[in-house]
C-alpha cells in the first residue's frame, strides 16, 4: 500500500454497520489505511485490494471487476494490490450476502461467489461518496448526477469531472450509508461483469517477472532443505551430525520433530549435502502397516458388512425396503487410488527475522494467509501482529497450499540459524511428503422397479481421509425416493488433504458410471435415463441437454471412437460433459479426442476466464483419471517425481474442448473445480460404449485397460 495522495475508502467496522474512515495520505496516516478496499489518488489511479490468493484461478481480477463495476471505474486506471491480512474485515462468509469479515482462505471455488455482494456494495459506496462530494461542490441534487467510466456527469449543466479531480477535494463521511440492493446495477447495465477483460496477472506471467515466493532473494540469505520422515509420524535421530557440520558452507543441521534440516550457503550445497545425512527413523508408526494395494480387500469386506455404520450423509425413505421390493438390483464397486497435487511450484517459503528477534517477515504463496502467518508466529514465538506476511503468486495450489506445514518449517529453521532463509522442497520432497486425495472404494447399490424407476440408491464410501471422502456423494439433482449415503472411515495414519474438487472427483466417477451401467441394463439411452431422474430439476436438465446438443449426442461416433456423457456439480455450479475417445490398439492407451461441456454457474463475472478454468479443470481431471496414482508400501510412498507420477502432457490433451456457459441471472457459484468431477464418469462411459466393458478403478492406465479388455 504505497499510495501517495488521494483518498482511501476504508471499512473500520465489522458486521452490518460499516463505518468508513477518511485518511489523508501522509506518512503517519498510512498505517491507518490498513482497512481499505479502494484507494483513489488525485491522478485518477485506483487501487483495489485483493483479499484472495491468486493461484491461477483468476479471482484477483474478478474481485476487482466487482468493485470497479459498481464504482463505474475506468478499468484502464485500476491497479490491484494484496489486501492486508485482516480476516475480520477482508474475510468472506461461507454463504452469500453482505456480511463482512470471515475467512481469508481461498478454497472450494468460493472466492467470487463469497465476495460478490460485499464487493459490489463496497464499489457502490465508493461511487456514492464521489457523487455526494460533487453534489456538494456543484450544489446540485445528487440524483441529477450520473457516473460513467471514471467521471461524474451533470447533464443539465453539461459538466463532467474525473474521479481523480474529485479526489483532490473529496471528504469521506464518517458513516457511508448502506446502498440498498435495488440501487446496485442490474445485470443488463453491467459494463464489465460478464464481459471480456484480460486478466491482470497475465503480462507478468509472460515475461517472467511475476513473483512467486520461490523467487525471493534477500541479502545474506541461506538455503535449506529437509530430510523428512519416509513413514508419516516417524522421528529422526541423526547419526553423523558432526561430519555434516564440518562441510564448508554448511551453516547448520537442525533437528525437527519430523525431519532433519540442512542449512547451507547455497541451494546446491544444501541439496548435495542432504544425500550424505545418516538418519535413524523411529519405527512402529501407524502408517507403517499401510499397503495401498491390499487395502482395497479390507475395504470390500467393510463394504459387505451390513452392520457397518458410517457417517451418514443422506438417509431418506427406507433404502433397505426399497432394495427388497425392487424388481432388479445392481451392485458395483468403484475404486480410486491416492492422487498428489503436483502444483508446478514446489512448496517453499522465505523467512527473515529482525535482528532484535522481535518481528519477522515471511514471503509465501498460500491459500490461507492468516493460517500461514499464525504458523510462522507460533514457530517463532511471536505475536501474529509481529509477523508481516508478504503474499506472493502461487505456482498452483489445488488445496496443498491451504496447509502451512512448509511455513512452520521455514520459520523454525530461520529461528535456529538467525539468518534470512529460503526453504525449498525438491519435487521428491513435495511428492513424498505430500498430503493426498484419499484412496477409497465406493460400493454402489440400486434397486429398480418394473417400470425402470430407480427406487433405492445406496452409496457407501469406504476409505481413509474422513470428511474428504464425503463431498460430492449426494446427488441432489437426481430423484431417488429411498436413499442412503454414508462414509465409513478407515485411518491409515497417512497424510490426506483437499485436492481440487475434493471428494467430488471419485464420487461423481462412481455415481455417473453406475447410472450408465443401470441405464445400459435397462436398455435406455444414458441421456434419456438421466433426464427422467432429473425431471424435477430444470437447471440440471438444461445443462445436461445443452452438453448433449453440443456433442450431437444422438449421432454415434465412427472410426473406432465412442462418446460418453456424465453430469457433475461442485461449489453450486452444474456441469455436464461429453467426451469422445478411442483406444490405441498397440499401447492400450485411451485417447480423448474431443470434449464438449456445458456450465451453469449463475452470473459469470469473467467469462473467458471461466472457460479457461473449465479447460484447465478438465485436463487436470483427465490427468488424474488416466495417469495418476500414489501407492504406499509399508507406509512409504513409492513414487518420487514426474517419471513415475506422470502428469498429462500436451500430446494427450484433447484436440478440442468446447465450453458453453449457460446464460443465467442466478447468483454466481464456483467455477475453478466444477469442470473436474464429471470427467471420470464420461471417460468410463465412453469406454463402455466402445468396448462393452467397464473400467471401475482409477486411474485408467494402459495396464488396467488391457486387463479389462482381456477379462
Amino acid at each position, binding site marked *: 500500500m504505497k499510495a501517495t495522495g488521494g483518498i482511501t475508502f476504508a471499512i473500520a467496522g465489522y458486521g452490518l454497520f460499516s463505518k468508513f474512515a477518511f485518511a489523508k495520505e501522509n506518512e503517519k496516516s498510512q498505517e491507518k489505511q490498513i482497512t481499505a478496499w479502494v484507494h483513489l489518488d488525485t491522478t485518477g489511479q485506483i487501487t483495489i485490494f485483493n483479499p484472495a490468493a491468486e493461484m491461477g484461478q483468476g479471482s484477483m481480477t474478478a474481485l476487482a471487476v466487482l468493485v470497479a463495476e459498481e464504482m463505474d471505474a475506468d478499468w484502464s486506471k485500476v491497479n490491484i494490490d494484496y489486501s492486508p491480512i485482516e480476516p475480520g474485515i477482508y474475510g468472506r462468509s461461507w454463504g452469500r450476502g453482505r456480511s463482512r469479515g470471515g475467512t481469508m482462505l481461498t478454497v472450494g471455488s468460493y472466492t467470487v461467489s463469497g465476495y460478490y455482494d460485499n464487493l459490489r456494495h463496497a464499489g457502490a459506496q465508493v461511487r456514492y461518496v464521489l457523487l455526494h462530494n460533487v453534489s456538494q461542490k456543484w450544489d446540485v441534487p445528487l440524483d441529477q448526477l450520473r457516473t460513467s467510466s471514471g467521471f461524474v456527469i451533470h447533464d443539465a449543466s453539461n459538466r463532467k469531472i474525473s474521479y481523480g479531480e474529485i479526489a483532490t477535494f473529496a471528504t469521506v463521511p464518517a458513516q457511508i450509508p448502506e446502498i440498498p440492493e435495488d440501487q446496485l446495477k442490474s445485470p443488463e447495465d453491467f459494463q464489465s461483469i460478464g464481459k471480456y477483460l484480460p486478466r491482470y496477472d497475465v503480462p507478468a506471467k*509472460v515475461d517472467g517477472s511475476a513473483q512467486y515466493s520461490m523467487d525471493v532473494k534477500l541479502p545474506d540469505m541461506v538455503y535449506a532443505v529437509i530430510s523428512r520422515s519416509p513413514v508419516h509420524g516417524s522421528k529422526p535421530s541423526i547419526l553423523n551430525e558432526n561430519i555434516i557440520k564440518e562441510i564448508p558452507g554448511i551453516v547448520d543441521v537442525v533437528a525437527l520433530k519430523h525431519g532433519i534440516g540442512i542449512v547451507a550457503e547455497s541451494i546446491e550445497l544444501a541439496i548435495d549435502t542432504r544425500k550424505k545425512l545418516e538418519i535413524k527413523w523411529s519405527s512402529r508408526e501407524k502408517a507403517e502397516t499401510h499397503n495401498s494395494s491390499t487395502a482395497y480387500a479390507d475395504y470390500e469386506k467393510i463394504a459387505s458388512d451390513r452392520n457397518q455404520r458410517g457417517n451418514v450423509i443422506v438417509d431418506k425413505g427406507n433404502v433397505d425396503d426399497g432394495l427388497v421390493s425392487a424388481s432388479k438390483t445392481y451392485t458395483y464397486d468403484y475404486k480410486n487410488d491416492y492422487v498428489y497435487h503436483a502444483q508446478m511450484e514446489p512448496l517453499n517459503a522465505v523467512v527473515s527475522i529482525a535482528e532484535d528477534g522481535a518481528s519477522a517477515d515471511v514471503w509465501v504463496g498460500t491459500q490461507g494467509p492468516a493460517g500461514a502467518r499464525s504458523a510462522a508466529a507460533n514457530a517463532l514465538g511471536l505475536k501474529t501482529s509481529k509477523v508481516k506476511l508478504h503474499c506472493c503468486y502461487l505456482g498452483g495450489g489445488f488445496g496443498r497450499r491451504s496447509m502451512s506445514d512448509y511455513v512452520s518449517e521455514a520459520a523454525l529453521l530461520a529461528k535456529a540459524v538467525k539468518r534470512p532463509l529460503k526453504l525449498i522442497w525438491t519435487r521428491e520432497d513435495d511428492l513424498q511428503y505430500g498430503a493426498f486425495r484419499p484412496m477409497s472404494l465406493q460400493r454402489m447399490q440400486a434397486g429398480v422397479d418394473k417400470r425402470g424407476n430407480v427406487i433405492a440408491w445406496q452409496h457407501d464410501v469406504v476409505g481413509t481421509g474422513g470428511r474428504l471422502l464425503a463431498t460430492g456423494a449426494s446427488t441432489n439433482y437426481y430423484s431417488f425416493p429411498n436413499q442412503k449415503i454414508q462414509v465409513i472411515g478407515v485411518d491409515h495414519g497417512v497424510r490426506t488433504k483437499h485436492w481440487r474438487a475434493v471428494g467430488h472427483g471419485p464420487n461423481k466417477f462412481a455415481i455417473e458410471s453406475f447410472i450408465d451401467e443401470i441405464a445400459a441394463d435397462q436398455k435406455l439411452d444414458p441421456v434419456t435415463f438421466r433426464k427422467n431422474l432429473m425431471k424435477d430439476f430444470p437447471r440440471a436438465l438444461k445443462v445436461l441437454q445443452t452438453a448433449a446438443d453440443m456433442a450431437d449426442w444422438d449421432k454415434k461416433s465412427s472410426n473406432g471412437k465412442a462418446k460418453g456423457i456424465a453430469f457433475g456439480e461442485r461449489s453450486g455450479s452444474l456441469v455436464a460433459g461429453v467426451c469422445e475417445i478411442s483406444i490405441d490398439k498397440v499401447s492400450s492407451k485411451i485417447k480423448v479426442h474431443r470434449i464438449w461441456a456445458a456450465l451453469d454457474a449463475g452470473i459469470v463475472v469473467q467469462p473467458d476466464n471461466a472457460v479457461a478454468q473449465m479447460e484447465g479443470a478438465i485436463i487436470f481431471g483427465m490427468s488424474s483419471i488416466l495417469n495418476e496414482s500414489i501407492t504406499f508400501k509399508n507406509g512409504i510412498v513409492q513414487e518420487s517425481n514426474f517419471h513415475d507420477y506422470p502428469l498429462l502432457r500436451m500430446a494427450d490433451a484433447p484436440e478440442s474442448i468446447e465450453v458453453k456457459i449457460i446464460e443465467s441471472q442466478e447468483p454466481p457459484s464456483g467455477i475453478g473445480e466444477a469442470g473436474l468431477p464429471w470427467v471420470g464418469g464420461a471417460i468410463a462411459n465412453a469406454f463402455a460404449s466402445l468396448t462393452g466393458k467397464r473400467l471401475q478403478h482409477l486411474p485408467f492406465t494402459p495396464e488396467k485397460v488391457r486387463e479389462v479388455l482381456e477379462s
Partner: protein
Amino acid sequence: MDKSTFVIHVNGQKHRVEVESNTPLLWVIREHIGLMGTKFGCGVAQCGACTIHLNGNPVRSCVLPVSAAEGSEITTIEGISEDNSHPLQKAWIAEQVPQCGYCQSGQIMQAVALLEKNKKPSREEIITHMNGVICRCGTYVRIIKAIERATLEG
C-alpha cells in the same frame, strides 16, 4: 567440493560466478545471478519449467552443469524481449494462456526455439516439440492456439 570461477554469458551479459563445477545451471541463473524467470519444477528434466536456450537450442537447465555452459550463449525468458513484445509473448497475452503461470517461462522458451527453426509448424509439429513441458493447470489448448496465432501474426 572445490569451487571454481565460471564466466557465463546470459542475455548478452557476462557473469562471473564462484560455484562447484557440477552446479546445475538453473541454480546459477536463479540464485547466483538473480534472474528469477526461469523456474525450478522437478530437478530431473521431466517438466521443462527450467527451459532456457543454449546457443539457441532449448535445454533443461536443471540438469545442465554450469561447466558445460561456459562459452555458450544463454538466453532466458528475460532475454527474449524487454517489453513483452516478442510475437509469442503477444500471442500468449492475446490467448490469455497462463493460469498459475509457473511453467509459462519454460513453455514460451520452448516455443520460441520452435519458431526460430520452423516458421510455420503444423499442429503435430507443435505438439511434438512442446510435449516435454508440463502445465499442471492444463493450459495446453491455449498454448497451441497462441503458437498458431504467433505463426500467423509474427
